[in-house]
């Protein structure tokens, strides 16, 4: 089974779960005065879930023929691309999300930029570090002062 049909199966699961929630779990807690309304909060989701299940089934059962075309990246040969780098970058982004508050904006951002270039194979530290620092400080300045959105610049223990 090709990837697009596997994904259709996943989406079908999503639609079924959504439909279950809409059809069976939402209406019980509705207040009596709401039940007199012609439309309930669950009406629109009910319609959507049915349509979604039908459309996902159409793909899953291959009812609509499509000609195979050369994709930009062939997922069957994913290992031949720079998969490791992509995964590491994703992990780096998750780490950034977790560190942004505790470590502060400046340290996390510089680390993200430096490590990002490092993962991609850059080794010129004398360029990487200044570029990352300048970018981090200037973006922080723009967001904090020009746009007026507070971002904690330094780690919490330093009182930032």
């Amino acid at each position, binding site marked *: 089974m090709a990837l697009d049909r596997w994904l259709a199966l996943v989406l079908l699961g999503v639609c079924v779960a959504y439909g279950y929630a809409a059809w069976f779990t939402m209406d019980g807690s509705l207040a009596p005065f709401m039940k007199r309304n012609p*439309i309930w909060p669950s009406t629109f*989701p009910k319609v959507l879930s049915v349509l979604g299940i039908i459309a996902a089934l159409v793909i899953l059962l291959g009812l609509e023929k499509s000609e195979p075309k050369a994709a930009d990246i062939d997922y069957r040969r994913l290992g031949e691309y720079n998969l490791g*780098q992509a995964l590491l*970058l994703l992990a780096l982004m998750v780490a950034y999300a977790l560190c*942004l508050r505790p470590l502060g904006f400046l340290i996390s951002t510089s680390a993200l930029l430096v490590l990002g270039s490092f993962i991609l194979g850059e080794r010129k530290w004398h360029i990487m570090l200044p570029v990352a620092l300048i970018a981090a400080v200037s973006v922080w300045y723009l967001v904090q002062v020009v746009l007026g959105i507070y971002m904690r610049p330094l780690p919490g223990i330093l009182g930032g």
Partner: protein
Amino acid sequence: MLEGFLIGLQTALSVQNLLMVIGGCLIGTFIGMLPGLGPMSIIAIMIPVAISMGDPSAALILLAGVYYGAIFGGSTSSILLNAPGVAGTVASSFDGYPMARQGKAGKALTVAAIASFAGGTIGALLLMIFAPALSSVALLFHSAEYFALMVVGLSAIAAFAGTGQVAKALVMTLLGLIMATVGEGALFNLPRFTMGIMDLQSGFGFITLAMAMFALPEALFLVLKPKDLQGDDGKIKELRITGKEAKAIAPVIGRQSLQGFFIGVLPGAGATIASFLGYAVERNIAPKKEQDEFGKGSVKGLAAPETANNAACTGSFVPLLTLGIPGSGTTAILLGALIALNVTPGPRLMVDEPQIFWAVIMSMFIGNLILLVLNLPLIPYIARILTVPRNYLIPFILFFTLMGAYIGQNNATELLILVGFGICATALKFADYPLAPLLIGFILGAMMENNFARSMQLYDGVSFIWERPMTLGLLAIAVILVALPSYRARRAKARQDGVAEGD
């Protein structure tokens, strides 16, 4: 009309807004030039900046400038490197790149700039004429018609998705609508589908979703498969075109501005379709001698897609500004930004806030002029950005994606949602699922449900569907739009199998 014209001129010519146009065009050109980054990612990245400015006219002017600039920048990399930065400029590389190979890169860029300028300007003129007319019709619409109109728009997007893609586009649209129902809903503000998670109470963030759908997968694709950026490093010189060439492209520009604009107005058919169609049409109607030149460096073949894609970009603003229904991913993002700024585009926009509408149109003229006057001489220098190593570029793209999602909500959980959705979107992109319908569905979802709920309450049930002829008609169009492609595909297949074709 004249009054609106002057209001717009007054707003657009303020120093701040002029700077916005110039800045937007330059940023758009810069980033649009990078292969792999389309206008949707760029606009998604620029949205937090635009929203925090707080002035809707300025924000829309900035974003429209970025949009234009991105298309213009995309054609530059198509011509110089044969690496289109934007899907809408793929057709420009058919003739632009051969011209550059023949040492006529400067000339190709000039032709592209003039064609874009003419396409954009004529498009803006048409917008000025058609938008007010359309919006006065739209003022007669009832919420039932609005609901039906949105259904038509969404099904048109699915119908234009191409052979074998209709079901996929439909699923993505429905998924977008489903995601829009998460959070506090249209009726009674009851929280729905939050699974008890507080962070989902207000629904998914639109910027987060836009970033996850466009910017992140594109960046990941750049990591997975580095594009070869080695062009002919020849100097760009001789920007002038001859009178004969100007004469040759003038009728092409005229035809393609009109055609491109009207294709752009249709929901789902944007700059990409307009440019391919424009190229095909011009090749077919060209005399035999010139037809052979297409694909080998014909000025006509370059002018046609360039004019058409810019005119289509302008055309796509018509449904956005008059009906409040975006027809493409880019205008959907613009709509999201406008809603965040407390402006609801639609027929009332021209009555309630005419300065926004007219300022945008005026800034389109100014933006086109700036792209012509400012960018053309600067192109040889701007093209240097193509030599920025990707080792530096990609971390910055990722960083701006994260930043955009973060400063909108000031919530680190949003970043995790971003990465999660980004991975899902990349997988969907692998399997050739279109991503723009999801975002359009997501943005239209709340509006659609509101209009649906309102008409249900007015008619105390679903009877509004058959009691209002216009609603019924629109919904019938929607059904036909979805059914037609699969019917045609089936008939084509039957014909292949040797089945006789009935009348």
